[in-house]
């Protein structure tokens, strides 16, 4: 076969598109024709050149494209971050709300306290020793006496702290029913006990 006739078949052969019969004829011709072997090499080199010719991808290409698509209503927008944070902030938000209710309610309960006491209020009493019958937490009257004995000079803020500490030590002082904050956001089905 003449070289000029087979060159187009060699081109298809290089691309893997020659039929089995065509491939056989090409390989047979290449075996005896140096010029066509050289032509085959050059054709393959052009294929490599094509693959090595690449455009650059700008760093903002995606951003610009998606902005244009959103402007044309071709791309649904991402969900609002606010929705995301509400879902994940439910637990701490509920806890914060419970604490706020607790503090507000404790401030509304009337309490009697000497305004002349100074110094840090007692937070915890000594642990009762074996055989003793004294309570772990001193009674209300005893605590008041201790506060008065410290000099009786409390600022309004100190009085507030003392009032809240008394409630924490003795839940009976709190008129509202005891609330388990965890019940607010833990489903009953998951609770233990």
């Amino acid at each position, binding site marked *: 076969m003449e070289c000029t006739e087979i060159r187009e078949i060699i081109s298809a052969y290089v691309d893997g598109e020659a039929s089995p019969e065509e491939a056989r004829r090409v390989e047979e011709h290449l075996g005896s024709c140096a010029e066509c072997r*050289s032509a085959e090499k050059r054709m393959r080199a*052009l294929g490599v050149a094509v693959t090595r010719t690449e455009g650059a991808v700008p760093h903002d290409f*995606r951003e610009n494209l998606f902005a244009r698509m959103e402007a044309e209503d071709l791309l649904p927008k991402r969900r609002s971050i606010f929705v995301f944070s509400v879902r994940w902030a439910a637990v701490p938000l509920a806890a914060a709300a419970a604490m706020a209710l607790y503090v507000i309610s404790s401030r509304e309960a009337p309490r009697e306290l000497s305004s002349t006491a100074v110094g840090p209020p007692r937070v915890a009493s000594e642990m009762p020793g074996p055989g003793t019958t004294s309570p772990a937490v001193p009674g209300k009257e005893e605590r008041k006496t201790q506060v008065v004995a410290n000099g009786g000079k409390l600022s309004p803020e100190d009085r507030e702290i003392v009032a809240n500490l008394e409630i924490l030590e003795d839940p009976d002082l709190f008129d509202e029913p005891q609330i388990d904050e965890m019940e607010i956001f833990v489903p009953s089905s998951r609770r233990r006990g």
Partner: protein
Amino acid sequence: MDGMRTDAELMELYRRGSRDAFEELYARHHRRVIHFCYRMTGDQARAEEAAQEVFLRIARAASTYQPTARFTTWMYTIARRTTLNFLRDEKEDGEKVPIHDNGEGRDAAEGLPLPGPEEWDPERIAWGKQLKEKFLEALQNLPEGHRSALLLNRGEGLSYDEVATVLNITVQAVKSRIFRAREALLAELSGVLK
């Protein structure tokens, strides 16, 4: 999600309103679209504009996509038509500007020491920057139909049959165009051999 979704499945999801599906399609194909546009237009800026337009057209035409055809075949049909528009705009503006001009009206790559025919070993040839630029310029000098056929097959990996679908021609016509593109490129590149 079990396994990777096909392009056709992603298109269907996108048509139903899934942004993630389109983002996945974009991630899979944006590089090849940019490369194709660059090879077709020979210019980075024009390639970026064309590539953006390709994806916009894909999105606008999503309702017309038929999953019976491969997504990439449909995508390259859009890509080729899009780049044609950019090439037509260029022709209306006047003569093509050489990629590199040394200020004297001649191609700066003239006289470039390219390897001789006996050295065209595809594994050993050194495609340096100058050679790449000369090659890109030579591509732009091909008739668009020949350039498209060569780039879709050699650059994008489409079979002759798929190229025929994209270009709406016969397989024999694809075979002939690619052969003539090769002949023209070799003639142009060989002309600057020292």
